[in-house]
């Protein structure tokens, strides 16, 4: 009697438990669904669809025609694409290290008690919250023939420079504006990292006779190396996609001097309606970023100091 009673109680409990579990699972699916549908339609499907598109010729108005790898072959013979890739490489190699180095030093200097800290920080944040179009317009004016930059050069007796219209200089100008706009962003990330550096370590180094600069190079930099690495990778990824400043300030010119890959993809797809070729170019960027991100995951453990 007793045993059977116990058994039914247990069975009841189990069935109610599993029904609770099933109900929770149903709620789980329901809660994820809205977000998942959006991600499915506008992120996952497009990535796959984009690869198919890169194998077609498509101007949107007619139907796509399958051309196999022709778009990727076309890239090899496209001298503008070659110039674009080189520009992107140059843009990345110049802008990312300067940005990382500058922001790290700025953050280190800001990470101490001093007067007017709030003012400094706000000053560096302003360009970050300003939309890239407004930044572009401001700098088109600053860098114009009679602009602020040339007038400042004039004061110290130098000739005016064609910042945005000289093919040799324009890309450097765009890079400078990019750096100007993004300094505050990485600075915040470095500031957060610096605040996590244990004070005891730095003080111990100070007692051992290390000066401020030595402390920074030998103690702080290794400790924040994961952040340096991270900021570098995200900087590279960002520069592979840069579009706004180039579009507004130079339209990729003069000639193709400032055409970077983010701009060239847009131009091919939405100016010339070469959807297939544009997709192929975008896929190259995708693969490059994928390789970078995965190598970041794999190499992080080896290159970067961790406490374990």
């Amino acid at each position, binding site marked *: 009697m007793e045993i059977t009673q116990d058994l039914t109680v247990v069975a009841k409990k189990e069935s109610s438990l599993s029904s609770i579990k099933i109900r*929770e699972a*149903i*709620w789980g699916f329901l*809660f*994820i669904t*809205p*977000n*998942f549908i*959006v*991600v499915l*339609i*506008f992120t*996952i499907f*497009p*990535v796959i669809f*984009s690869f198919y598109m890169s194998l077609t010729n498509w101007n*949107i108005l007619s139907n796509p025609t399958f051309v196999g790898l022709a778009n990727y072959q076309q890239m090899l013979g496209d001298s503008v694409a070659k110039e674009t890739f080189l520009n992107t490489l140059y843009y990345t190699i110049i802008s990312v290290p300067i940005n990382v180095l500058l922001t790290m030093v*700025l953050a280190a*200097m800001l990470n*101490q008690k001093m007067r007017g800290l709030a003012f*400094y920080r706000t*000053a*560096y*944040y*302003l360009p970050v*919250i*300003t*939309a*890239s*179009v*407004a930044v572009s*317009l*401001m*700098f*088109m004016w*600053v860098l114009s023939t009679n*602009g*602020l930059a040339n*007038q400042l050069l004039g004061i110290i007796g130098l000739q005016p420079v064609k910042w945005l219209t000289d093919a040799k200089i324009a890309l450097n100008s765009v890079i400078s504006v990019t750096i*100007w706009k993004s300094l*505050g*962003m990485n600075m*915040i*990330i470095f500031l957060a990292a610096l605040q996590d550096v244990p004070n005891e370590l730095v003080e111990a180094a100070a007692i051992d006779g290390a000066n*401020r600069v030595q402390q920074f190079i030998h103690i702080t930099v290794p400790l924040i190396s994961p952040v340096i690495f991270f900021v570098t990778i995200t900087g590279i*990824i960002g520069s592979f996609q840069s*579009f*706004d400043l180039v*579009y*507004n300030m130079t339209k990729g010119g003069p000639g193709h001097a400032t055409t970077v890959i*983010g701009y060239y*993809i*847009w131009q091919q797809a939405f100016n010339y309606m070469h959807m297939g070729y544009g*997709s192929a170019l*975008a896929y190259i*960027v*995708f693969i490059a*970023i994928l390789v970078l991100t*995965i190598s*970041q995951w794999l190499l992080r453990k080896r290159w970067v100091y961790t406490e374990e």
Partner: protein
Amino acid sequence: MESKYSSLRTLDYGRLILKMLAVTLLTLGAISMIIPFLWSISTSIKSTENIFAHSAFWIQWPPDFSAYTKILKEVPIFQYALNTLKVACIVTFGQLLTSSMAGYAFAKLKFPGRDRLFVFYLATMMIPGTVLLIPNFIVMSKIGAVNTHWALILSAVGSVYSTFLMRQFFQTFPSELEDAAKLDGCTPISFYWRILLPNSKPILLTLGLMAFQGIWNDFQWPLIVLSRPEIRTLQVGLSYLTNEYYTDWNLLMAGSILTILPIIVLFFFVQKYFVQSFKLTGLKG
């Protein structure tokens, strides 16, 4: 303390020099951050004939606001602002809703395949926006959303990234509260709505601000999907100004300042959450 030790005195001089160097560099940097803004403001209050007539440092006083009145009269900048505000608000609320729901499910609800799905979600964060532009344009044109604000809203109301951050935040939510709620017969949806959300204001504000600012400042996607003038967002409208007012720098600067102003005002009100959202944006891989 340190200055009591004479051996450390020399270090103090070095420290002082370093600090002075730091202050000088920081100040120079800060000035170079602010000057372009000041010059834009100064240009925007110049009369057209004075833009090129004087040196860059000449300030017109009393100011001439005709650039502002002209731009407000000739350009539907209020319409652009309303368009942008509408889209930004809908996206912000939509994104907060869907990603807090999904984040809650990933953090607290058990269902088969949950963790594998989450890893899949994380993997999609590697997909760069550039590769999505062309296929999403095709999708939007197939569903008839091109040239409507739906094109801006639909693709942004679900975000993997903010789902991920919501999950991280909800995981730290005390499980005692959850157990107590369960004992009281609280269903997941009433727990989510009545306990979880009211207690998650910081993350909701931060991510909401991030979404709002992202939409407000977004340029490339609206440029691609909006070609009808009356539905343009502020950024797209501002960009088109350069075609009409080629070297009317006072007008262009007035336009820029009008589009920046709302975000700067917002920034000074909720600076803390802005800084927090920068940190989180920075973590986006």
